[in-house]
């Protein structure tokens, strides 16, 4: 650490911060003195980092380079599909970051990171210099592992959308749901690990089932075709589906529970409203025939569907992949204390794109990393000690019924050079009273607003 401090300190001393002229009208009088942090991406990680850096170290100039002029939050956005939320509800202005905290914005797309020259180049022809750059590009989608869909554009043209990064996809899925024939079948395909928002695909399946039930479809079915054998919040979610959607626990999932807990599960006759075909049951999807709405699996047979929500495997966002920040896994290795790239100096990667040990790819995790990085960047750019970090994650989810909530809550610390989880209990207890699930749903709704304010407000 001392080496990094010294190097950065010297650089900060001698910096000429050419950013002053390009960074969207920063005060030229001071621009040559202030260190400049460029932030690539105005999502949860980038926005949190920018805001907290301006709180902790107002003398550091911070510029977010982000093509979109308004943010659409992916967290909680499955509720747009079922109409509990509108696109307006998930659309967030950058005004507070700009006006209240003094974060500068350039609405443009970063194409090239000139690591040696400490410069960014944009699609719009701009050049932005930096002392340190924070890359928070989120995710990109990998269609190479599925037959029948060649690319994101090809899938979309065939009507198969993921809806895993907000946007118009959500309205497409909403229209597809509303157009489902009575008592039809919807298929949700969660991605393999690691992926953004671990409980999210399962929450979405539950939300679809609940919507169909409320429409009056007694025999509609949502089938989750999975390459995995477990997921974050599975213990709580599967219990909820058993209570709410005639879901029978597959034999292969019984290891998630104790004998005593298993005894509390109901056995339902007839078709479930939500079903989960696990990886060990052959649930991995290998081919999608969008024209005939047929989904083929590795070992569980072929499914005919009325609606297909395929969420492909994920990788780090494009700008990270194209600028040598990702390794062979498709994600970006970083130092667990400073989030500095292990591949390039003075570049920090936070949020979904980075490899953060035991931390999930979630909004809360990106937010937590952004705050820790704000503390560390203050030390790196203005002098001071790198600090011992602590990270946190909370993901709320609904079982489907909007009065039945759940969560995972974790604290993380750095141990032996890795980010590890240090809490014991992370879900609601199996035998929690019914009102606890209702309270979790209340907090889930409150969290959408509270969290958005912490990031953007």
């Amino acid at each position: 650490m001392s080496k990094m401090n010294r190097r950065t300190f010297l650089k900060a001393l001698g910096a000429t911060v050419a950013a002053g002229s390009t960074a969207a009208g920063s005060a030229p009088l001071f621009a040559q003195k202030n260190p400049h942090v460029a932030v690539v991406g105005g999502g949860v990680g980038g926005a949190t980092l920018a805001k907290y850096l301006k709180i902790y170290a107002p003398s550091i100039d911070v510029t977010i380079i982000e093509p979109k002029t308004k943010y659409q939050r992916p967290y909680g956005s499955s509720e747009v599909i079922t109409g509990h939320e509108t696109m307006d509800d998930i659309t967030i202005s950058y005004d507070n970051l700009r006006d209240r905290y003094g974060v500068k914005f350039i609405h443009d797309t970063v194409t090239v990171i000139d690591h040696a020259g400490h410069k960014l180049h944009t699609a719009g022809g701009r050049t932005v210099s930096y002392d340190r750059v924070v890359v928070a590009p989120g995710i990109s989608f990998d269609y190479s592992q599925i037959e029948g869909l060649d690319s994101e554009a090809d899938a979309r043209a065939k009507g198969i959308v993921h809806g895993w990064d907000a946007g118009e996809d959500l309205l497409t899925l909403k229209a597809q749901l509303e157009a489902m024939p009575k008592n039809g079948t919807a298929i949700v395909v969660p991605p393999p690990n690691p992926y953004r928002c671990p409980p999210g695909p399962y929450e979405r399946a539950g939300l679809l089932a609940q919507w169909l039930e409320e429409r009056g479809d007694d025999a509609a079915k949502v089938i989750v075709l999975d390459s995995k054998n477990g997921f974050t919040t599975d213990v709580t979610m599967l219990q909820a589906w058993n209570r709410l959607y005639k879901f029978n626990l597959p034999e292969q999932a019984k290891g998630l529970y104790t004998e005593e807990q298993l005894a509390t599960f109901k056995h339902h006759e007839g078709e479930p409203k939500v079903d989960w075909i696990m990886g060990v049951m052959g649930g991995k999807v290998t081919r999608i025939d969008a024209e005939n709405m047929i989904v083929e699996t590795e070992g569980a047979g072929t499914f005919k569907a009325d609606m297909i929500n395929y969420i492909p495997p994920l990788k780090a966002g494009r700008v990270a992949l194209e600028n040598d920040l990702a390794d062979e896994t498709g994600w970006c290795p970083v130092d667990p204390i400073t989030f500095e790239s292990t591949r390039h100096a003075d570049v920090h990667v936070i949020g979904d794109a980075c490899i953060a040990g035991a931390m999930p790819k979630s909004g809360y995790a990106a937010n937590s990393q952004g705050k820790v990085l704000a503390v560390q960047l203050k030390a790196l750019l203005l002098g001071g000690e790198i600090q011992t970090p602590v990270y946190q994650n909370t993901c709320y989810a609904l079982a489907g019924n909007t009065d039945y909530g759940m969560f995972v809550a974790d604290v993380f610390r750095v141990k032996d050079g890795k980010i590890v989880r240090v809490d014991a209990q992370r879900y609601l207890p199996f035998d929690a009273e019914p009102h606890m699930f209702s309270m979790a749903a209340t907090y889930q709704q409150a969290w959408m607003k509270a969290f958005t304010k912490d990031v953007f407000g």
Partner: protein
Amino acid sequence: MRTKRIFPLALLAAVSAGSVFTANASELSAGLTGQMAAQTCAGCHGTQGYIEDSAYVPLAGMDKEHFITAMQMFADGSRPSTLMGPLALAFSDEEIEAMADYFAAFPKERPAKGFISEE
């Protein structure tokens, strides 16, 4: 295993001894600053503990002893909670006190510009 209620005495004892997590916490020798520990709360309880019209309790300006007592009661289960119990258990006594000091130093009322510089 994961669903079992895990608030055993051993854990409580370790936490009240205030050493178990911090001993192995980090490559760095120093403990957590109040700011570092407290910023983990803000994702629900608002930046610097400022939050209005929410199911979450504002923490800005909370009395130090009140904060510590609440966290201790969450940790030992005597105050029922959804997720605050496990979260409180994951911090040492010293860290909880540092968080309490941090929040107690803020005025209860959010300042006009919306936040307080921590320069």
